[in-house]
C-alpha cells in the first residue's frame, strides 16, 4: 500500500471552504492596485481538495509515525527518552504560552522567574558560573561557545588558530570549529576508546585555542584521563569545551565544571525532556566559567529593584545568537522536569540510564561483538563486522529491527568503529522492553544464517519498503513539479 501525496487527491475546482461574495466589500481590480509584474499569471499549483480530504490525508500520515510515545527508540547518541506529559502541561499554561516576547518585563515576571531558576539549576548541574538560555539547539550552543572562546582569546591579545577534536567526536564539533574560523586537528583514540593522551600532548601548541570533548564520549565510554587532558590543554593556554550531548549519563553525578571544562552546552531537548527528532524545536543553553561570562550572548537576565529584566547593555558580548530569548516552551518543560525530579531524582535518571545500557550490552554480548570490553555509561557501540562477514551488514540488521516493532539503533557512527550499531536505551524503558529487544536482536542474528534475504529486503511490515538511498541521494526528487517532470 502506497500513500498518495496530497497533490494526487487534487481535483480541479474542489474547495475546502466556499465564500459568498460580500456585498459590503467593494470589488477591487488587482491591476488597479498592483504593478503588473507582481501579479501572478501562471496557475498557483496548489492541491485542490475538500476539507475532509486534507484531514484524512494528514491523519492517515500521522498514524504511520513512530516515536517514543509508540515504542522503544534506542537511537544511539540521541537520548530518545519518554517525555512526561506534565511538562507539556506546564509549558502550555497561558502565563507561559500566551505571552509575547515584546511585552514589558514587568508583565511577565512569572515567566522570567522560571527562566532565572532554570539558569540557576543548569549552573548547579554543569558546575558553571553563568548560563545563557538563548541557543536553540546543541550545535547552536557549540557555535556560541566556540565564538565566546575566540572572543575571550582575542581580548587577551592571543590569535590562536586551532581547535582539537577527537576522532570519535560528533560531526558537529569539527563543523562548529570550522564555522568559527578555526583549523581542526583530529586527536586519535587509544585502544580503550578514549583520547590518546600522548598524541594529545604532541598536538597541543601555542596555536591551540581549545579542545572540544564529549564525556562520556560517543562510544558511551567515560574519559578516564579527563583531569590530565584538561591540564594538558590548559597548560598550553587553550580552553576546554564540553559537548553536553551525553549529559544524560552523568547528570547529578559529576559536573563538567569540576572536570576542568570552561564552556558547556546542554541539550534540553534530549536530557531535559522535550520531544525531539523531527527537527525541533530544541534548546542548547551554554554555561561558562567566570572569566568567559562577559562574552555570553545578550540580553542577559538580571535582577534589579523592579524584579527581573533583560539587560542588553553587555559590552563584550558576542551578540545575539537567536531572536528574543530562545525556545521558551522548551525551557519551561526543562524547568518542570528539573523540579519534578529534584536532585535525587536526577541522579536516579542517570544511574538508571547507565544501568539499562550496561544490562542491554551484557545481554547482547553473546551474539554481537563489543569492540571495547569496558563498562559503559548511557550507550554502547557494537561492531557488526562478524555479521557482515556472514552476509548481513549493520544496515540490514537495523532495517530488520523495524519488522520486530522497534525503531532501529544508529548505524555507521561513530566512524572509529567498523559496521557500527549504536544503542542508547535511556532510563525510561522497563526491563521487559529491554528483554524484548534482546530477543529480537538474537532472532535477527539467527536469521542471518537461516534466511539472509529476510534481512536484505527488510523492512517487510512497513508501508514503504527498503529505500534506494543511493539513488535518492544522487538524484533527489524533492517537489511535486519535479516528480511530474522526472519521475
Amino acid at each position: 500500500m502506497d500513500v498518495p501525496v496530497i497533490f494526487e487527491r487534487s481535483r480541479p475546482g474542489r474547495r475546502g471552504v466556499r465564500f459568498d461574495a460580500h456585498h459590503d466589500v467593494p470589488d477591487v481590480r488587482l491591476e488597479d492596485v498592483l504593478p503588473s509584474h507582481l501579479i501572478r499569471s501562471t496557475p498557483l499549483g496548489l492541491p485542490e481538495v475538500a476539507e475532509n480530504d486534507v484531514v484524512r490525508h494528514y491523519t492517515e500520515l500521522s498514524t504511520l509515525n513512530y516515536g517514543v510515545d509508540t515504542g522503544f527508540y534506542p537511537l544511539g547518541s540521541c537520548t530518545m527518552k519518554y517525555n512526561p506529559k506534565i511538562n507539556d502541561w506546564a509549558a502550555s499554561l497561558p502565563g507561559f504560552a500566551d505571552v509575547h516576547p515584546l511585552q514589558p518585563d514587568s508583565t511577565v515576571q512569572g515567566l522570567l522567574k522560571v527562566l532565572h531558576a532554570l539558569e540557576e539549576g543548569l549552573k548547579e548541574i554543569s558546575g558553571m558560573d553563568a548560563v545563557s538560555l538563548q541557543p536553540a539547539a546543541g550545535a547552536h550552543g557549540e557555535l556560541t561557545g566556540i565564538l565566546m572562546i575566540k572572543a575571550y582569546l582575542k581580548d587577551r591579545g592571543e590569535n590562536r588558530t586551532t581547535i582539537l577534536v577527537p576522532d570519535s567526536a560528533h560531526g558537529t564539533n569539527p563543523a562548529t570549529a570550522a564555522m568559527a574560523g578555526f583549523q581542526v586537528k583530529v586527536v586519535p583514540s587509544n585502544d580503550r576508546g578514549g583520547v590518546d593522551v600522548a598524541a594529545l600532548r604532541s598536538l597541543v601548541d601555542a596555536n591551540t585555542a581549545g579542545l572540544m570533548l564529549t564525556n562520556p564520549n560517543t562510544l558511551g565510554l567515560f574519559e578516564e584521563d579527563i583531569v590530565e587532558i584538561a591540564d594538558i590543554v590548559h597548560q598550553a593556554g587553550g580552553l576546554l569545551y564540553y559537548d553536553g550531548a551525553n549529559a544524560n549519563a552523568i547528570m547529578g553525578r559529576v559536573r563538567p565544571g569540576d572536570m576542568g571544562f570552561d564552556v558547556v552546552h546542554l541539550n534540553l531537548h534530549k536530557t531535559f525532556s522535550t520531544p525531539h527528532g523531527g527537527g525541533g524545536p530544541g534548546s542548547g543553553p551554554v554555561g561558562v566559567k567566570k572569566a568567559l561570562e562577559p562574552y555570553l550572548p545578550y540580553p542577559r537576565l538580571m535582577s534589579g529593584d523592579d524584579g527581573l529584566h533583560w539587560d542588553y547593555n553587555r559590552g563584550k558580548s558576542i551578540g545575539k545568537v537567536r531572536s528574543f530569548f530562545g525556545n521558551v516552551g522548551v525551557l519551561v518543560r526543562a524547568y518542570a522536569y528539573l523540579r519534578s525530579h529534584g536532585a535525587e531524582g536526577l541522579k536516579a535518571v542517570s544511574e538508571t540510564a547507565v544501568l539499562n545500557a550496561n544490562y542491554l550490552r551484557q545481554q547482547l554480548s553473546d551474539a554481537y561483538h563489543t569492540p571495547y570490553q569496558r563498562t559503559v555509561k548511557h550507550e554502547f557501540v557494537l561492531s557488526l563486522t562478524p555479521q557482515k562477514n556472514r552476509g548481513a551488514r549493520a544496515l540490514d540488521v537495523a532495517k530488520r529491527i523495524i519488522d520486530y516493532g522497534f525503531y532501529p539503533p544508529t548505524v555507521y557512527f561513530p566512524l572509529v568503529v567498523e559496521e557500527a550499531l549504536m544503542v542508547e536505551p535511556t532510563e525510561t524503558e522497563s526491563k521487559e522492553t529491554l528483554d524484548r529487544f534482546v530477543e529480537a536482536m538474537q532472532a535477527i542474528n539467527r536469521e542471518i544464517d537461516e534466511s539472509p534475504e529476510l534481512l536484505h529486503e527488510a523492512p517487510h511490515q512497513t508501508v514503504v519498503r527498503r529505500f534506494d538511498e543511493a539513488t535518492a541521494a544522487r538524484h533527489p526528487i524533492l517537489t511535486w513539479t519535479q516528480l511530474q517532470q522526472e519521475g
Partner: protein
Amino acid sequence: MQFPENLKYTSDHEWIGPDGRIGVTEYAQDALGDVVFVELPEVGAEVQSGDAVGVIESVKSVSDLYSPASGRVARVNDQLKEKPELINQDPYGEGWIFELEDAVPGDVMSSADYQKQVEGD
C-alpha cells in the same frame, strides 16, 4: 579483495599509479558503501602529500580525500560528477579521481604491505 601490484597505497586507503593517477581502494569503496557525491580538487592546484584535497560522500558518511603525493593537479575525473557510483563499480579504473603532474609520493606502501594492513584491521 584486489590490490593491483603496480599501484602504491596509503594507510588512508588511497592508491597512486606510476602515471600519477589517484583513487581510493577496493577496501575503501566497500567500507564507504554507495558513493553519492565527490568533491574534486581544482585542476592546476599545487598539493602536498597528506593534504585534504576533496571529499567523498556516501550513504554512510562524509570523508576527506587525502593526496598520497605532492604535485600539481593535472586532470580530474569529471565523469564522477554525474556518476559517483563509478568509484564503487571500478575503483582502479573508471573510478579514478584525479591525476598529479610531477608527483612525489609521500608515505606510501606496496600492495603486499597494504593488504597486510587491511587484513590486520
